[in-house]
C-alpha cells in the first residue's frame, strides 16, 4: 500500500478512536465539564498532562531546532521539563486541595478581589489564545504535507474534531482522548527514533546511541558526538557540544531563557488545571511525577534524534552530487522544506554555515541542469548552497531510516495527536475563563447547572472558531507570541500563586500590583524587542528570557505592597492554613 493510503488509514483510525472516547465520556454537569468530575486516576492524568503539554512544536519542531543549535538547544529540553518539579513541589498539591475549577478561581478567592480575578482571567485567555493559534496551524500543516489537502481544509477538519470532543465531554472528554493521543504520539516518535539509532550506532535505546560509536560508513568507530563536533567545525559551525561560543547565546541568556521557560511552564493555566481533575492531594503529587516521566520519554529521545538527523543529513548530502543524493531529498524538495541552489554550477551540494539565499525558497517553473527545482531567491555571499527547514529533521526521519510506509503514516497521526491534544486543553481554559470566571462568578451567581453547562459549550464553540480563524489567517507574529505566552505565565501567575500558598501575609493590593507590574514590564520589553526592533537593552537578555525579570519584579511588588498595606482578613489566613493540609481534598469541591 502507498504512503498516502496508509496515512488515510492511520488518521481516520485515530480520529475514530478519539470520537468514540468522546461519546463515551460525555458529561451532564459542570463538575464533569470543568474538572472531569475530579476522579481521574493519577496515571491517566499523567498521560493526559503529557499530551496536553507536548504540542506540535515539541513533536515536530523541537528535535530539528536542537539539531541546528547543538548545546544551546538545551534551553528547550531543560526549560520545558524542569517546570514540572516546581509544579509538583510548589503548586499542584495545594491547588488540588483548594479544589476549584480554574486558575482565576484561586487568584480571585485567595486575594478576595474581583479585580484580581479579572486580571487573572484576562491573562489566562491571552496566554491560551496565543498558544492555540499555533496548534491549529500545526494541524493544517500536517494535513497538507501528508494528505495533500489544502492547509485551510486541514484546519477546518481539526476544528470540527476538537469541537466535537471538547464540547461534548468537556474536561472529561478531553482527558480520555488525551490519554489515547499520548499513546499515538509517543509511539510515532519512538519507532523512527529507535530505528535510526540502530542504523547509525547499533544501540536500541536512542539515549545510549546518542553517546555511542558510529557503526559503518566513513566515520565507523568514532563517537557520534565527536564526529558531529568535527564535521561542524569543518563546515564553519561551532562545535555541537560546546557552550557559549561565538555566535551562540551567552551564559546569562541561556540561564534566563531556561528559567523563564521552567517558571512559565509552571504558570500556564492549561497545565495547572489538569491537577484539579485528580481525586486527592496524594494523586496530584503522584500524577505530576507520571506526567514528567511520560514527557521525559520524548524529551530525552529528542536530542538523540537531533544528533542522528544532523549526522545523517550532513553525511549523506554534503559534498554529494545532486544525482547521487538519496531519494528522500527529492521527495522533500517537492514540499519546499529543503532546497538546493547550485551557486557554482558544479552539480555538487555544498553545505556550510550561513543562509544560502534570502528568505524562504521561492520556486521558478522548470527544472535545473541536474533536475533540481529552480529558485528565484537572491543568493547570499555564503558558499552554502543548501536550505533546510528544521521541521524536516523529524518529518523525514522515517524515510531517512528506510522505514515502511505505515511508520511514515504513524508520524503524521502523531503530529496531529500532539497538536489536537494541546489545542483541546487550551480551548477548555478559554471557555472556562469566560463561562465560569466571568459569567458565573462575576455576572450571574444564580445561574443554574444546565445554563452554565450550555454557556460552557457555546464558549468552546466560540474559542474553536477564534483559534480556527488564526489558524487559517496566521498573524505574522505567531512565532513571536510564544515567547509572550511563557513570559506572561512566568510574570503573572507563578509568583502570585506561590506567595498565595507560602506567605499568608500576601494581600490583594500586593497581588494586583505584582501582576500588573510583572506583566506590564514583560510585555513592554517583548513588544520593544520583538515588534519595534529595539536591541535587547537589559544585559542582552533575549525577549524569551525576560519573563524571569518580570517574575522577580512581580515577587518584589507583591511583597513590598503587601507589607505596607493591611493584613488579609482572618478567613483568608484560615483558607491558606487549610490549603496546606492534604486531608479533606475530596470534599473541597463545594460549588
Amino acid at each position, binding site marked *: 500500500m502507498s504512503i498516502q493510503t496508509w496515512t488515510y488509514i492511520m488518521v481516520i483510525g485515530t480520529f475514530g478512536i478519539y470520537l468514540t472516547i468522546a461519546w463515551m465520556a460525555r458529561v451532564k454537569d459542570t463538575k464533569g465539564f470543568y474538572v472531569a468530575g475530579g476522579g481521574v486516576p493519577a496515571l491517566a492524568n499523567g498521560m493526559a498532562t503529557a499530551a496536553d503539554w507536548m504540542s506540535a512544536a515539541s513533536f515536530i519542531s523541537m528535535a530539528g531546532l536542537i539539531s541546528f543549535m547543538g548545546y544551546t538547544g538545551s534551553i528547550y529540553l531543560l526549560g520545558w521539563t524542569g517546570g514540572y518539579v516546581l509544579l509538583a513541589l510548589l503548586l499542584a498539591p495545594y491547588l488540588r486541595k483548594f479544589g476549584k475549577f480554574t486558575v482565576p478561581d484561586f487568584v480571585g478567592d485567595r486575594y478576595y478581589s474581583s479585580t484580581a480575578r479579572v486580571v487573572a482571567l484576562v491573562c489566562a485567555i491571552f496566554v491560551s489564545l496565543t498558544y492555540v493559534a499555533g496548534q491549529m496551524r500545526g494541524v493544517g500543516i500536517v494535513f497538507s504535507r501528508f494528505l495533500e489537502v489544502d492547509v485551510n481544509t486541514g484546519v477546518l477538519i481539526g476544528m470540527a474534531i476538537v469541537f466535537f470532543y471538547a464540547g461534548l465531554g468537556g474536561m472529561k472528554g478531553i482527558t480520555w482522548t488525551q490519554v489515547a493521543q499520548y499513546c499515538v504520539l509517543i509511539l510515532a516518535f519512538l519507532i523512527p527514533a529507535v530505528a535510526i539509532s540502530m542504523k547509525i550506532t547499533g544501540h536500541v535505546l536512542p539515549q545510549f546511541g546518542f553517546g555511542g560509536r558510529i557503526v559503518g560508513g566513513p566515520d565507523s568507530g568514532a563517537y557520534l*558526538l565527536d564526529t558531529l563536533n568535527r564535521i561542524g567545525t569543518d563546515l564553519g559551525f561551532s562545535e555541537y557540544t560546546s557552550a557559549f561560543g561565538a555566535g551562540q547565546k551567552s551564559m546569562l541568556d541561556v540561564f534566563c531563557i531556561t528559567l523563564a521557560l521552567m517558571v512559565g511552564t509552571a504558570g500556564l493555566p492549561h497545565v495547572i488545571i489538569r491537577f484539579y481533575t485528580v481525586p486527592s492531594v496524594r494523586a496530584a503529587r503522584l500524577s505530576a511525577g507520571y506526567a514528567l516521566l511520560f514527557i521525559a520519554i520524548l524529551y530525552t529521545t529528542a536530542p538523540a534524534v537531533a544528533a542522528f538527523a544532523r549526522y545523517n543529513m550532513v553525511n549523506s548530502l554534503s559534498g554529494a552530487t545532486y544525482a547521487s543524493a538519496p531519494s528522500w531529498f527529492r521527495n522533500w524538495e517537492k514540499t519546499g522544506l529543503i532546497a538546493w541552489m547550485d551557486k557554482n554550477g558544479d552539480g555538487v551540494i555544498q553545505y556550510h554555515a550561513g543562509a544560502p539565499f534570502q528568505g524562504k525558497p521561492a520556486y521558478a517553473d522548470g527544472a535545473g541542469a541536474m533536475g533540481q527545482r529552480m529558485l528565484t531567491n537572491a543568493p547570499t555571499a555564503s558558499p552554502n548552497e543548501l536550505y533546510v527547514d528544521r521541521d524536516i529533521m523529524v518529518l523525514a526521519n522515517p524515510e531517512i531510516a528506510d522505514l515502511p510506509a505505515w511508520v511514515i503514516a504513524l508520524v503524521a497521526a502523531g503530529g496531529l495527536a500532539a497538536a489536537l491534544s494541546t489545542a483541546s486543553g487550551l480551548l477548555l481554559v478559554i471557555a472556562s475563563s469566560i463561562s465560569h470566571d466571568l459569567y458565573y462568578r462575576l455576572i450571574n451567581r444564580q445561574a443554574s447547572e444546565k445554563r452554565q453547562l450550555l454557556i460552557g459549550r457555546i464558549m468552546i464553540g466560540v474559542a474553536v472558531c477564534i483559534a480556527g480563524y488564526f489558524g487559517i489567517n496566521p498573524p505574522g507574529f505567531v512565532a513571536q507570541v510564544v515567547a509572550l505566552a511563557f513570559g506572561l505565565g512566568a510574570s503573572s501567575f507563578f509568583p502570585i500563586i506561590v506567595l498565595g500558598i507560602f506567605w499568608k501575609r500576601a494581600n490583594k493590593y500586593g497581588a494586583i500590583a505584582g501582576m500588573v507590574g510583572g506583566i506590564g514590564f514583560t510585555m513592554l520589553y517583548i513588544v520593544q524587542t520583538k515588534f519595534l526592533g529595539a536591541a535587547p537593552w537589559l544585559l542582552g537578555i533575549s525577549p524569551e528570557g525576560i519573563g524571569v525579570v518580570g517574575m522577580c519584579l512581580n515577587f518584589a511588588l507583591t511583597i513590598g505592597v503587601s507589607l505596607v498595606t493591611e493584613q488579609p482578613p482572618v478567613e483568608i489566613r484560615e483558607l491558606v492554613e487549610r490549603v496546606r493540609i492534604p486531608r479533606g481534598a475530596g470534599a473541597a469541591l463545594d460549588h
Partner: protein
Amino acid sequence: MREYWKKNLGYMVALLSVWAVVSYGCGIFFVEQLNAVRIAGFPLGFWFAQQGAIYFFVVLIFAYYVLMQRLDRAYDVHE
C-alpha cells in the same frame, strides 16, 4: 501542624537545591568545566544539559511523593 509544615518546607528546599544544581549548576554554569570529563561518548556537562538533568527531575518528583506520603501519615493528615 507547624512542625508538619516546617518539615514539608525542609524537603522542598532540599529537593529544589538538587533541582538547581543539576540543571543550572551542571547544565549551564559549570558546563564548560564538566565538559572536560567524558563518560562514553558524552562530554559530562553536555550530558547533564540534554539528558541527565531530566532524569534527575523525574526522580525528584517521585522522591517528594514518597517523602510526603510518610510525613502525611506521621502527622495523621493523609486522606
